[in-house]
């Protein structure tokens, strides 16, 4: 059985298969619900390990680090730093970089915009979150320091 692209990509949707009655896991986080009770603000946060849920070796991490971070493909997206789109979510997951977030949006027909929370975000649980969005966003917030957003050209 092969999953749809977005399920494979995000591993978020519950499925109904055989005897399973699955619920859709309540995974969709939106960038609106800024929780007030997060950990103390951190200005610079550069995690030493970037396993992102993978069980990896040190050598893996070195090799992955050496691959570097690609830039967002600006021919595909109009990119704006410090911009946060509110609402219009079609998916949410953690991504290593804003370019990976943009690439996920690019390959998802339901996605027209994305918002990515950088490692500077004051709430640890938001850092490196990637929200895929459509044009039904409610609002956008400028001067949102820890975010970068993009809109499909």
């Amino acid at each position: 059985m092969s999953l749809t692209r977005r399920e494979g990509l995000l591993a978020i949707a519950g499925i109904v298969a055989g005897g399973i009655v699955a619920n859709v896991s309540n995974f969709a986080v939106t960038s609106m619900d800024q929780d007030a009770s997060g950990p103390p603000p951190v200005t610079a946060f550069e995690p030493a390990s970037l396993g992102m849920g993978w069980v990896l070796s040190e050598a893996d991490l070195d090799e992955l680090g050496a691959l570097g971070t690609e830039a967002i493909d600006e021919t595909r997206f109009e990119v704006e730093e410090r911009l946060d789109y509110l609402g219009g979510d079609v998916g949410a997951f953690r991504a290593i970089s804003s370019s990976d977030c943009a690439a996920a949006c690019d390959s998802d027909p339901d996605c027209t915009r994305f918002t990515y929370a950088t490692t500077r975000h004051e709430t640890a649980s938001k850092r490196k979150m990637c929200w895929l969005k459509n044009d039904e966003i409610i609002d956008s917030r400028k001067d949102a320091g820890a975010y970068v957003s993009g809109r499909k050209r």
Partner: protein
Amino acid sequence: MAQISSLSALDASKYDILIVGSGPAGCSLADRLSAKGVSCLIIETGLAEYNQDIQTAYTAMDTRGHFGDQHWAQHWIRAFGGTSMVWGGWCAPLDEQDFEAWPITLSDLRPYYDVAADILKLDRVINSYEAAYLPGFRFKPFRTVYGAMRFGEEYQSYLTQTGPVDVLLGVTVSDLQPNEGRDRVSGLSLHQSDGTRREITLREGQRLVLAAGGMGNAQLLLNPAPGTETGVGNETDQVGRYLMEHPHYINTAALVGRRRLMPPEPPANFGDYVPNILADRAMHAKTGKLSVAMELVEREINPVDRVERYLSDKYDGDFVTYNINIRSEMPASADNRVTLAPSRDPAGLPLLKTMCMAGSDTVRPIFDILEELGKTVLTRNEGRVFIHNDTLVSNPSGGGHTMGTTAMGDDARISVVNRDCRVHRYSNLYVAGSSVFTTGGSANPTLTIIALATRLADHLTGAA
């Protein structure tokens, strides 16, 4: 005789065994008993066809904890054939280590697993097949069935043909009366949907088997008969406790790597299956002694995950990718339980309230086992494992498996039935169904339910 037209036409004294409930447990018990010439009466709330009004009126529940507000109520169908009306048909026997806390062992149940496979018309190979996988792990698939057996259709003849099994539909057992010494059930009250009531007295030698489902068995034993304080079998306050499901965490991990990670194929006579990985004995002991089934679901490489891209380059195309669906075991906890709610069903039985949490003792072993799988493929340089933290700590779904509420044990202080599925103290009262499971393993329960029910039939006829 076959289907009895109404409560007033019933002559209960002529049956050797009275069975409450017509699901897989009740029907397979009657099947085995009747084959030995024992006469049985099945008493069933539901009708031959599913009826939404009956369903709602009899299964409404107050729910606290994990799995969802409607979960337990929706997984207890009140019709001829019981919950098999909607089940998925997935089957696997429990493992040897799953029986550690039970008073019986896998060898006690082995012959009856084969009887259960026969009843379900599945090849007996499903009870013995497993294969080696990575060190520390085994390959043991679930048998899947498209068009699972509906017991109401399979045992239609109980309604239409004269035989040793008669059925009373639309009638609910509403309470069980203990004798004065509380060592026998002396009688039971029956309620028919038109409001008619009748009291039945159990004659000497006649025995009663509750096969009313994981909720229904507990409900009957929790409910004190009029004029008494305590339900029959609940003298030590054990009924309704140890409520368990199989928490399902779908797409909660991934296994990617070399093609040799592809699971083996079971023999052709095994039939349809889903590939499934389990810990071996030593790994099971090391990771918390709970059964964690890891279903491998083949998928395509995720091109925006740079770890997967990196690994696919590294292994130069010798690469397979799987999502992992977890079906796991909850520890039997006395605090996860079913109790009586203040409202009542149409027969006058108190409705139920559930409290069931999949806590850290459920989830931590899953993390541990996935980490161990990850370390194993990493050190062998065969692949990598991804663990999706947020899915594992979210509300799991369940399989519709209601287990543990009348647990089996040798010690009456911490269990409800003994190794023969007889309610402690009571000489003429037995329980069939997943409510007797001491622990739940990770296999779907119905194959084990049928194995236990047919074993009980042999016990009742003196054959086991």
